[in-house]
């Protein structure tokens, strides 16, 4: 009986050590990627191409999601506030929620699902078809050519997407609040103007989305680069990207919120 227990503990130890080893590899990988980004400052053509595939192509889902999230927020805020006679605060509630939380977090989750998994699949497929190996043998550094542009594109695109998400959300909320629910348009805009702070809310939201962009892009390119180069391994890698990115984003959101918004 004890033998079985000891086996299980040993297995747990192996798995834990393996996880730490993987984490360490991922950490070293991140440093390598950041070091490889220097080329992009001089010759940004690769970066632009990646920003298109990572940023522009995620735009549609972000805009649609932002619109609907804003509209739903307006409805829900209204229902919650109308009992207190405070329905004029819908503008404030929606703006603060979007700028501080929903904008950065929902954008990051959608990004991880759409762009993150695509990055992992792309890089993983290049690994499986020996394209990365081929590049190495042609004396071209795949870190600089393939990984770094994609990483940078993700980090830069995330705050841009989050801003668009929040703006579209506020506009959607405006339409619902003023046109549909008949709230006063002046109250909708003027209350946030007093309560929403440029530095505390908007800038902090941007910082959040930057951090999320770093995390999501890092996980996506690492999983692709580190995957087992078979079709099964690729599937596992893309799943891991989405799951780990989502969990990490939500975890960091908690940490950042506690740091930024505690009084």
């Amino acid at each position: 009986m004890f033998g079985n227990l000891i086996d299980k503990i040993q297995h747990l130890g192996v798995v834990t050590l393996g996880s730490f080893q993987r984490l360490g590899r991922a950490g070293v990988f991140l440093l390598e990627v950041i070091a490889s980004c220097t080329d992009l400052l001089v010759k940004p053509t690769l970066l632009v191409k990646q920003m298109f595939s990572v940023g522009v192509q995620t735009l549609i889902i972000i805009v649609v999601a932002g619109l609907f999230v804003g509209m739903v927020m307006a409805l829900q805020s209204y229902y919650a506030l109308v009992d207190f006679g405070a329905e004029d605060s819908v503008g404030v509630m929606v703006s603060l929620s979007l700028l501080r939380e929903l904008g950065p977090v929902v954008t990051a989750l959608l990004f991880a699902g759409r762009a993150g998994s695509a990055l992992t699949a792309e890089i993983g497929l290049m690994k499986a078809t020996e394209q990365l190996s081929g590049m190495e043998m042609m004396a071209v550094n795949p870190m600089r050519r393939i990984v770094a542009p994609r990483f940078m594109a993700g980090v830069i695109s995330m705050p841009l997407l989050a801003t668009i998400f929040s703006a579209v959300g506020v506009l959607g909320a405006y339409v619902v609040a003023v046109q549909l629910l008949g709230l006063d348009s002046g109250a909708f805009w003027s209350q946030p103007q007093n309560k929403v702070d440029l530095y505390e809310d908007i800038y902090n939201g941007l910082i959040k989305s930057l951090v999320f962009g770093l995390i999501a892009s890092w996980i996506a390119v690492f999983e692709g680069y580190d995957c087992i180069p078979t079709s099964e391994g690729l599937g596992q890698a893309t799943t891991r990207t989405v799951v780990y990115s989502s969990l990490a984003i939500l975890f960091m959101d908690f940490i950042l919120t506690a740091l930024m918004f505690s009084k």
Partner: protein
Amino acid sequence: MTSRKIEILVGLFVAAAIAAFFMLAMSVSNMSSYGGGDSYELKAKFDNIGGLKVRSPVAAGGVTIGRVTEIQYNSDSYEAVVSMSIEEQYNKFPVDTAASILTSGLLGEQFVGFDPGAEEDFLKNGDVIDLTQSALVLEQIIGQFLYSKADEEKE
């Protein structure tokens, strides 16, 4: 897709994000209260500032004319010292202007209200307002009310 088209679309993407940022900053935030022109500083001393916070508004006649920039406690005179930044265009407050801590609405936030006096000299940068009224603290009011009621009963 040609690289030219790609570059244009990426450029539009970045431009859209910047536009979104400005839209949010202008219409939804209090950006206008930052650095909107020149301002001068005034100080006022209060026994109790109640719920007044940094960046609370300073208003005269209901119109916001500035913001609270700093709140400190003077241990020698046992008073709270509030520093305020007033917009330059509102520089005609007489030296005997009174500053009170008021509440906007029933449950609203607290702000500093200026009540202009009658002197001919105006407050300048760095001046201290002498006439002040502290915030009303609910417990003190209830206490006062109960005591006055008790006095009335006695009589």
